Every structure is written in structure tokens, then in C-alpha cells.
């Protein structure tokens, strides 16, 4: 075969492929437009406990022999926990279950109007301790490992710092900011000279989900449209579309926040930067990070725009743990826990770290 013939054959193959994909785009685009929301969070689970905004799930173990220490994952208060269990094959929960962990997850319902007064005290001195106690009862084990994501990591850190004799065995902080003066655009927008958080909390009571979502989306204003353009081109690719829709649903289901909680986090953590300075007091207890003595793993993303690198970097220097480690990975705030970087890099390293500390 001559070069010209081979080249002609390549062009033919490519053109045929392009035409096939164009047809697929049309057919699947119609299905996309007419189908309901993505099916997420499919790993079997039971609701172990619920009270107001708080939900505690227990996932059904997938192997016969478990590690002794159960794992409790704490979701950020602004989003639903199904990002931990996005899709089969793209689920951190499923991954840990298959590796022999007994997995529990703290999820949040939208706070009801009467929960507008919830504070850090409720989350760190009531909700997390209650869930840990429920996990102890369910498993019969005296200690529990906690994995906190983003603000869930902050709450877990405050819990750990205020429960030094508590049953915490290991603490994993995923994209957890501690230096709140380094939070990028969030720091600029929440400038205390201009941001009247008292007025926002007093007027709204519950901060609407749209308000929170806009704050997130404004930080990457082109992201949504770029995503839609990408998915329109990739419409022939079922796996890509499935993953895109799951992430899209997760972003759309941003949660409202209790006004009092927002007021407190803005003033104490944002303006006062008290988690970083060690001046934070929650429920009458000092939440100094040097009180955290349990083995600690911090997993951070290189291109995280919500918890930028400078805000997560000081964690290891601030905690009192002897056994501590940081894993810095490529990726962003969400892809770190549920994207390709998570599947290929983060989950295996997390599992390895936890496994040797869970017997």
C-alpha cells in the first residue's frame, strides 16, 4: 500500500468516526435533554440516625473481614455527601468498602428555619460526638477514624482539638483550610469593612442555597458554560456524560446554611482567623490545633480554588501529632475526592495510610 493510499484510508476512518459521533451526539443529546437527574449515591446503606439537619448513614460492608477501626466521613456543611458515593466505580465509599473498611457518613439536610441558630458548638460538640457514639454502638469498637472534607475537615479538626481524650483513632483532613486569611476571593469578598454578616444572618435566618452556590460559581464564572460545551461535544461518550451529570447534580444541590453558623464562621474563622492563631473557643473549650495528637493525614489539591494551597499548608505545623503527613496531589477541590485524580491517586494512598492504622 502506498503512503497516499494509507493516508486516504486514515482520513476515511477519521471522517467515518466523526460522522458516527455526530449521529450519536444527536441521539444521546435528545436522551440527555429528556431524562431525569443523574442517579447518584447507589451504594447500599441504612440511615443509622437523623435529627434535623443531621443524617448518619451506615454503608453495608462489601467484604467478609473488616478492619477493626470503623471510618466516619464528615461532609462539608454546604453540600450533600453523595459526592463520596457519586457513581459505581467513581465512589470513595465503595472503594473503601471493597478494601475492608466499615464506612459511616455524616450527611446534612438543608437546615430548617428553626435551625437558623445552629453554631459551631452544635456541629462539633453535639453532632459529631453523637455520630461517633452511634458508630461505637453499632460496631462495638472503642475508637473511630474520622475523614473530614473541606468544612467537614474544619469541624473534625475542632472536634479533635476539643476532645483530646476522645475516642478518635486517626484523623484525615481532605482539602481543609486552616489559615482563613489565605482563602483567595473568599477572603476578599468577606472583608469585614464591607461584608455586613450580621445583617445577612439577621435578615435571612437561613442563608439560601442560591447565595452559597453563587459564591462558589463566581470564583470560576466560566466553569459551568465550559462544562456544558464539553459535554455537548462528548455527548457520544456515555461514561463522560454520566460523570458530568453526577457532578452537575451535586453542584446544583448546594445546601443552605444556618445564619448563626455563617456569622460565627465569618467572624471567628474568617475575620479572627482563630483556628490558625489558636484563639478559637467552642462551647467553652479551647480549640487549639496543637491539642490534636492523633495520627493525622492532610490531603490537599494543587489547584484548589476554594481551599487554596496557602490556606491548607500550615495544618501540619499547627497540630500536635507526631504521626502526621501531607499528600499534595494534582487536581481541584472536587476532583481530588471524586475525579480521575481521586480514583488513580488519592483513594489508594488514603487506603494505604488508613489500613496500617486501623487494626
Amino acid at each position: 500500500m502506498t503512503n497516499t493510499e494509507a493516508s486516504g484510508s486514515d482520513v476515511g476512518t477519521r471522517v467515518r468516526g466523526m460522522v458516527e459521533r455526530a449521529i450519536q451526539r444527536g441521539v444521546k443529546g435528545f436522551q440527555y435533554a429528556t431524562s431525569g437527574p443523574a442517579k447518584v449515591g447507589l451504594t447500599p446503606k441504612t440511615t443509622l440516625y437523623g435529627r434535623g439537619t443531621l443524617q448518619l448513614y451506615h454503608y453495608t460492608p462489601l467484604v467478609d473481614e473488616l478492619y477493626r477501626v470503623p471510618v466516619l466521613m464528615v461532609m462539608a456543611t454546604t453540600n450533600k455527601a453523595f459526592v463520596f458515593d457519586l457513581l459505581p466505580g467513581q465512589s470513595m465509599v465503595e472503594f473503601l468498602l471493597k478494601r475492608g473498611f466499615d464506612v459511616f457518613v455524616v450527611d446534612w439536610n438543608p437546615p430548617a428555619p428553626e435551625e437558623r441558630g445552629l453554631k459551631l458548638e452544635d456541629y462539633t460538640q453535639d453532632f459529631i460526638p453523637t455520630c461517633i457514639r452511634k458508630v461505637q454502638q453499632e460496631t462495638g469498637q472503642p475508637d473511630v477514624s474520622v475523614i473530614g472534607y473541606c468544612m467537614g475537615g474544619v469541624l473534625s479538626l475542632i472536634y479533635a482539638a476539643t476532645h483530646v481524650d476522645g475516642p478518635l483513632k486517626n484523623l484525615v483532613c481532605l482539602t481543609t483550610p486552616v489559615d482563613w486569611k489565605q482563602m483567595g476571593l473568599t477572603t476578599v469578598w468577606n472583608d469585614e469593612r464591607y461584608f455586613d454578616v450580621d445583617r445577612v444572618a439577621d435578615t435571612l435566618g437561613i442563608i439560601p442555597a442560591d447565595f452559597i452556590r453563587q459564591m462558589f460559581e463566581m470564583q470560576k464564572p466560566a466553569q459551568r458554560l465550559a462544562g456544558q460545551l464539553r459535554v455537548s461535544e462528548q455527548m457520544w461518550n456515555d461514561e463522560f456524560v454520566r460523570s458530568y451529570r453526577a457532578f452537575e447534580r451535586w453542584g446544583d444541590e448546594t445546601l443552605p446554611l444556618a445564619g448563626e453558623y455563617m456569622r460565627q464562621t465569618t467572624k471567628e474563622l474568617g475575620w479572627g482567623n482563630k483556628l490558625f492563631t489558636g484563639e478559637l473557643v467552642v462551647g467553652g473549650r479551647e480549640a487549639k490545633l496543637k491539642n490534636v495528637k492523633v495520627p493525622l493525614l492532610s490531603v490537599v489539591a494543587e489547584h484548589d480554588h476554594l481551599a487554596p494551597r496557602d490556606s491548607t499548608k500550615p495544618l501540619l505545623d499547627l497540630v500536635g501529632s507526631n504521626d502526621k503527613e501531607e499528600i499534595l496531589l494534582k487536581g481541584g477541590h472536587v476532583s481530588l475526592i471524586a475525579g480521575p485524580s481521586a480514583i488513580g491517586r488519592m483513594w489508594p494512598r488514603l487506603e494505604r495510610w488508613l489500613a496500617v492504622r486501623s487494626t
Partner: protein
Amino acid sequence: MANNGPPDPAATFRELVTTWERNINSLANQVMGTESFSRMMQEMQRMQLALQQATSEAMGRRLAAMNMPTREDIIRLAEKIGDVDRRLAHIEAALEGNAVPAAETAPRTGRPRTRQPPAEYLSPNNQNKETPR
């Protein structure tokens, strides 16, 4: 080896989208990362909240005139029920605290908790050492 075939329009499109997204985000962040933008954004928010508050107060006065509970009244009632719920949870916690320690209770998950990490995980050379600090 260089690809001598015709350009792939889909790949070109993806690259264009990525470049466009990066540029727009970068430009927007420059604009929105300024003090003047922050001041303007918060000023707009203040006006919106003032309007919302005025509407809510006017509605509250009308409902009071009709001898009907306002949203605020209902929320206060629900808060009181929430308080009772919280107290019950604390009583439950206290009772559980007085019961046998967690370690001595029979676990409901009836699978053996004897799993050991694979041997290679225990080797110091195979720990997470890629980004030590």
C-alpha cells in the same frame, strides 16, 4: 511521532474551550479580587437585604392585623420543639454514657474485625513518601 493526518476538529474544540475557560476565569478573578468589587458587591447585597426586610416587616404587620401568626411566630414555635428534641438527645446520651462502655457492647455489624493490611503496606519503603514534610 508527529501526527500527519488531518487536524481533529473535536480536539481543537476542546482545546479552545479550555483556553477560553482559563482566560475568562483568570480575567474575572482579577476584576473580582479587588477591594472596589468587594465593596460594590456588598453594597448591592445590603440594598437587596433592606428591601427584603421591609417587605417582611410589612407582611408581618398585615398578618398581625388579621390575628394570624407570622413566619417568625411559626419559627419560634419550631425552635421550642427543637429545644425539646435536643434535650431528649442529651438525656439519651447521658443514659447511654451510664450504660456499659461501647467496647463491651455487642456489635450489630456481625463481621469479624480481624483484617490486616497487606504486608507491602507495612514496609517503610512503601508508605506515602512522595510528598514528605
